[in-house]
């Protein structure tokens, strides 16, 4: 379904420059998008993808460069103007108002109203229709968005974009919070849109998705276009990676240790753990040096399991034992004291101190290590943080900049760095590589494996089945709040996991 | 009735003698609490007017404040400045005593107005209103009006409760009522503002379904109090005011409300303080006295103003 190349492209951006204090985020980017195509934007973390689309949605004003829509040069002065041109955006950091309902969020800024009075019935009806068409009719229009899972919030964003008269839909890493099923649903929606002539700009770090949905590719590197108009179906992966990173990376998981871990002492033992209304009867044993993966659909309750285990939610039943000592229920300090660490799922709300410097974010849970009599040795902190950010390839490299100014993927690396630094007996990782680029991924996998080899018990939750199978020694499949399968990772393959995960699930 | 001769204390009284002739310029520092009600505003205003009347007085007025810490620093500033005299109406007399002592030790005479210091050495001259006496006057007047009716309901709308002056007034009131076997049945504090007076009075009317007499400490808040009475349509009682604003006196004169009397608490004290300071520094004495020195203490009288004698007072009353 390649688009017709004749006529002026729907969108033509050229020479776009955007500077932030100390960083030239965009340094002469060119991009053209045709009606009816899915145009993929590739690039490492911090390459400038999100900044580019924020320029496009008029969230930022560019410092230089031109934007033409339908061949006519245009100034996009405010987000409202961009919307008038039919540009709808789903941002990387979901920008919804937590306390407003689903319907209110969808129509925020272009409320259905008569004489200033909201037409709530009409809004709810329209919302229901939108959600049904997106395959998520179970989300109630009156529910507060803050209570939805990230995947459901993504759907709300999508519905919001569709509630406008959209000609150009921009999706910034939409699949980061979705599982296979969700991605398939998303692609179905995208195909429907492009068939009607809507253009889509699609950003993702998962190359297999690009192959499946994309028509053409533009690659950004350090804020500049390094290649454009590449054919999404045929360009070899190695070439793409070379273009993005400037080097070649073989994308592999680190080798598993040869000695069977089940021989060692169990470090973490969970018995009959339950959280009222979400999951129950979860048993889990993790040995020293072992990596256990939790696979499952989004919303299956995997995050809840490890958050409960960590004491961040109060269990309604069951026990958690670390090194033979029982943990007090619902107490994070108790878990931390016992050597448990949790790298949470949502980096912005659960992980980061956005206004604080990078190094402070990295050392926040191990501050005691850098302190003598409560006095901190900031130089040691910076040194350690710099080592970590370098090995994770955080860009830009300075550890003194506020985390807020980092790109999404780089922020994720900071959250992860904190927990890699921490001396833990048990490390719980929830979606550790969400939004992280290809280059940094293998580095993260290697680090996690190295930690395990040093005797840490690791639990990884991921929606990418490939990641769970590749990284973990043992895999648990979670469905609707219950563990439905457990086996060694090399005794099960991707399609079997998918079958287990889907069984009985809606759609 | 007593002769209220000294209370006026206005410029008109000091006409004779050479006291009004210009002498060396006198720099006077003046500090008073925040002018958050009419009486206090008029204290500062009367001080300014008094100073303006003399070309040899250079008055420095510090920001009115209810923060003793700030008021102390104002006095310190005056000391640093080397003013010739300080006229001080302290927010809290006891709390301002140390810094006043400091000024006296630095050779700057302090004229203490209205709220008395803890230590007599902290002021060269003290110009006092008589808060206790005010309560006594109000109480005695109510006693005389109600006669011997021990069942009569007497209500009191006080000022700011945490101020010592309010306690003194209430004490005087209670003591005077006790003389004729009455007591205060309902007491509500307000805050010296019309708004506070209205609020307090509205609640008071509900608390006491039947009242015979009310003493309201302050005529400024009294405007609100009267408005509340009017709103509620209650007039079975008579009210005595306090401080003696021109508004209140006009109302008494016109006899158009429940306000039948008010107890004067002279707001001219500020002006008196300025005059004392000038005389002190220029080493003059009070013209009408034989004394060659300015006296140590002047206590002003708290007369009751009624329709009978309002003529006598209305000209010196403060506009609030």
């Amino acid at each position: 379904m390649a688009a017709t190349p004749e006529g002026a492209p729907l969108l033509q951006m050229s020479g776009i420059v955007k500077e932030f204090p100390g960083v030239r985020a965009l340094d002469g980017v060119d991009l053209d998008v045709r009606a009816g195509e899915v145009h993929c934007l590739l690039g490492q973390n911090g390459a400038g993808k999100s900044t580019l689309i924020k320029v496009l949605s008029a969230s930022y004003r560019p410092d230089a460069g031109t934007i033409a829509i339908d061949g006519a040069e245009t100034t996009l002065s405010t987000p409202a103007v961009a919307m008038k041109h039919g540009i709808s955006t789903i941002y990387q950091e979901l920008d919804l108002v937590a306390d407003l309902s689903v319907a209110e969020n969808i129509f925020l800024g272009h409320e259905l109203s008569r004489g200033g009075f909201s037409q709530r019935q009409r809004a709810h009806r329209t919302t229901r229709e939108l959600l049904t068409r997106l395959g998520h009719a179970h989300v109630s229009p009156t529910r507060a968005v803050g209570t939805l899972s990230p995947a459901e919030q993504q759907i709300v964003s999508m519905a919001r974009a569709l509630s406008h008269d959209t000609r150009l839909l921009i999706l910034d890493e939409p699949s980061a919070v979705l599982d296979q099923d969700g991605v398939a649903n998303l692609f179905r929606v995208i195909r429907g849109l492009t068939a009607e002539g809507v253009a889509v700009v699609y950003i993702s770090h998962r190359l297999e998705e690009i192959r499946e949905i994309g028509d053409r590719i533009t690659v950004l590197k350090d804020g500049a276009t390094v290649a454009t108009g590449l054919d999404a179906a045929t360009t070899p992966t190695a070439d793409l990676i070379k273009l993005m990173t400037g080097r070649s990376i073989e994308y592999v998981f680190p080798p598993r240790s040869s000695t069977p871990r089940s021989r060692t002492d169990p470090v973490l033992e969970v018995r009959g753990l339950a959280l009222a209304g979400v999951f129950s009867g979860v048993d889990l044993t993790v040995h020293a040096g072992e990596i256990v993966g939790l696979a499952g659909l989004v919303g299956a309750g995997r995050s809840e399991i490890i958050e409960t285990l960590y004491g961040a939610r109060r269990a309604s039943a069951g026990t958690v034992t670390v090194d033979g000592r029982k943990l007090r229920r619902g107490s994070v300090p108790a878990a931390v004291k016992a050597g448990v660490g949790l790298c949470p799922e949502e980096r912005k709300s659960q992980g980061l101190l956005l206004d604080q410097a990078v190094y402070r974010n990295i050392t926040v849970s191990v501050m005691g290590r850098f302190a003598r009599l409560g006095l901190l040795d900031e130089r040691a902190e910076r040194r350690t943080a710099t080592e970590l950010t370098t090995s994770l390839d955080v860009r830009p490299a300075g550890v003194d900049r506020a985390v807020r100014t980092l790109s999404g993927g780089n922020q994720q690396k900071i959250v992860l760095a904190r927990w890699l630094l921490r001396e833990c007996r048990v490390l719980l990782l929830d979606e550790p590589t969400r939004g992280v680029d290809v280059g940094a991924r293998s580095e993260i996998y290697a680090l996690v494996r190295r930690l395990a080899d040093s005797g840490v018990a690791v639990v990884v939750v991921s929606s990418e089945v490939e990641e769970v199978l590749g990284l973990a020694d043992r895999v648990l499949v979670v469905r609707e709040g219950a563990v439905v399968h457990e086996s060694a990772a090399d005794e099960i393959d991707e399609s079997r996991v998918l079958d287990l995960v889907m069984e009985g699930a809606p759609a | 009735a007593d002769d209220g001769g000294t209370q006026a204390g206005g410029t008109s009284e000091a006409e004779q003698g050479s006291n009004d002739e210009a002498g060396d310029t006198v720099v006077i520092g003046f500090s008073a609490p925040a002018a958050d009600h009419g009486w206090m505003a008029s204290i500062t205003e009367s001080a300014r007017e008094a100073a303006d009347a003399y070309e040899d007085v250079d008055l420095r007025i510090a920001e009115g404040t209810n923060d003793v810490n700030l008021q102390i620093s104002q006095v310190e500033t005056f000391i640093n400045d080397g003013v010739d005299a300080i006229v001080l109406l302290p927010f809290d007399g006891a709390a301002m005593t140390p810094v006043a002592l400091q000024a006296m030790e630095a050779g700057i005479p302090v004229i203490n107005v209205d709220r008395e210091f803890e230590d007599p050495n902290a002021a060269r001259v003290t110009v006092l209103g008589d808060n206790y006496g005010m309560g006594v006057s109000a109480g005695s007047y109510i006693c005389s009006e109600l006669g011997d009716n021990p069942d009569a309901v007497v209500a009191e709308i006080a000022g700011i409760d945490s101020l010592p002056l309010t306690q003194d007034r209430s004490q005087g009131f209670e003591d005077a009522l006790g003389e004729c076997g009455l007591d205060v049945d309902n007491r509500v504090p307000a805050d010296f503002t019309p708004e506070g007076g209205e609020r307090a009075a509205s609640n008071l009317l509900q608390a006491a379904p039947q009242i015979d007499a009310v003493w309201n400490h302050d005529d400024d808040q009294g405007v609100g109090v009267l408005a509340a009475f009017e709103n509620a349509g209650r007039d079975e009682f008579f009210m005595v005011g306090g401080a003696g604003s021109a508004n209140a006196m006009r109302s008494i004169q016109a006899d158009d409300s429940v306000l039948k009397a008010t107890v004067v608490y002279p707001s001219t004290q500020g002006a008196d303080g300025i005059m004392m300071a000038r005389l002190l520094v220029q080493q003059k004495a009070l013209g009408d006295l034989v004394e060659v020195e300015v006296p140590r203490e002047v206590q002003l009288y708290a007369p009751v103003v009624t329709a009978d004698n309002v003529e006598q007072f209305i000209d010196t009353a403060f506009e609030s």
Partner: protein
Amino acid sequence: MSDDTEVSPGRGLPATAVPVSPTDPTTGGPGGERPARGRLGGLGGSGLVRNLGLVLALVILCVVGLVTTGERFGSTANLLTILRLAAVTGVISIGMTFVITGGGIDLSVGAVMALSSVWCTTLATQTMARDTHWIVMVGAALAVGAACGLISGLLVSYGKVVPFIATLAMLASARGLAEIISQRRTQIVDVPGFTDFFGAEVVGVPVIVIMFALVAAIGWVVFNRTTFGRRTLAVGGNPEAARLAGINVQRHTVLLYVQLGVLCGVAALMIISRTSTGTSTHGTLIELDVIAAVVIGGTLLAGGRGTIVGTVIGVLIFTTLTNVFTLNNRSTSEQALLKGVIIVAAVLLQQRFAARSKSP
């Protein structure tokens, strides 16, 4: 404003979308895990049910009033007294609910009310009012309030001065100006039409109580049923998201302060009619009462969540408390001591209920 654009839902969506069961079992009320910052429980929209704890606190207070003072508390006259006292704080509190929900705060309300009351009772204004119509005074009061609100709003939204500081500055300046204009005199109102109108009663209910009820009702509708209300929540809850959704956050912020300014003008009219005076001391420290009523009602001080019903109950709780104390002839000190304890008790009570109504 593009509000009325007709939207064709799901334009271009595949017709093959799988319909899922329309009734959703997982739909719970709002709530869920939120940051641990102190709060009043998940008070979401409006409605008595969500404010059950507060209502209960108010009821208990009334019962205490009835038990300790008999029918003196329960009499119509006393209830009207409570409502009359609540009216001034109440009107401002409704406006403050919008400002706080929108992520701001306004410390200048008392000062603006004072300035407004002074301006509209100057000799000049009163003379003009007598010569023409007393509505001139109403116009003056509202205009002064709106102007002050406009300045605060512009400072906050375009000047990017933090609301606390901008409105603190407005507080100082407005009161200073009020003092200068009035020369610190209490200005007595003598415009018969004005006093007659605002002092009147309609079927036994004082006009200012009716005004309060009207403002509360309009406030409720605007807050819960209009675009303006929804946008206020969005601007306070996530200003960046609101901006990206095409809302003019800065203009909206200005409007929020302007409406509060206008309501301060309304409050000025009420206090003028109650005390028959305009003075620079009106409304001293009322800002604390107002903010306390709004916050105890369940509006989030950080913005993004608010309730008009809660605010009204908050105002009533505070006024009733004072009334019960006065009827009981307690000393100010005891009142203060008890007030603190009662406030905390009311909040804890409200929390219990909020927590209970949230659990499944």
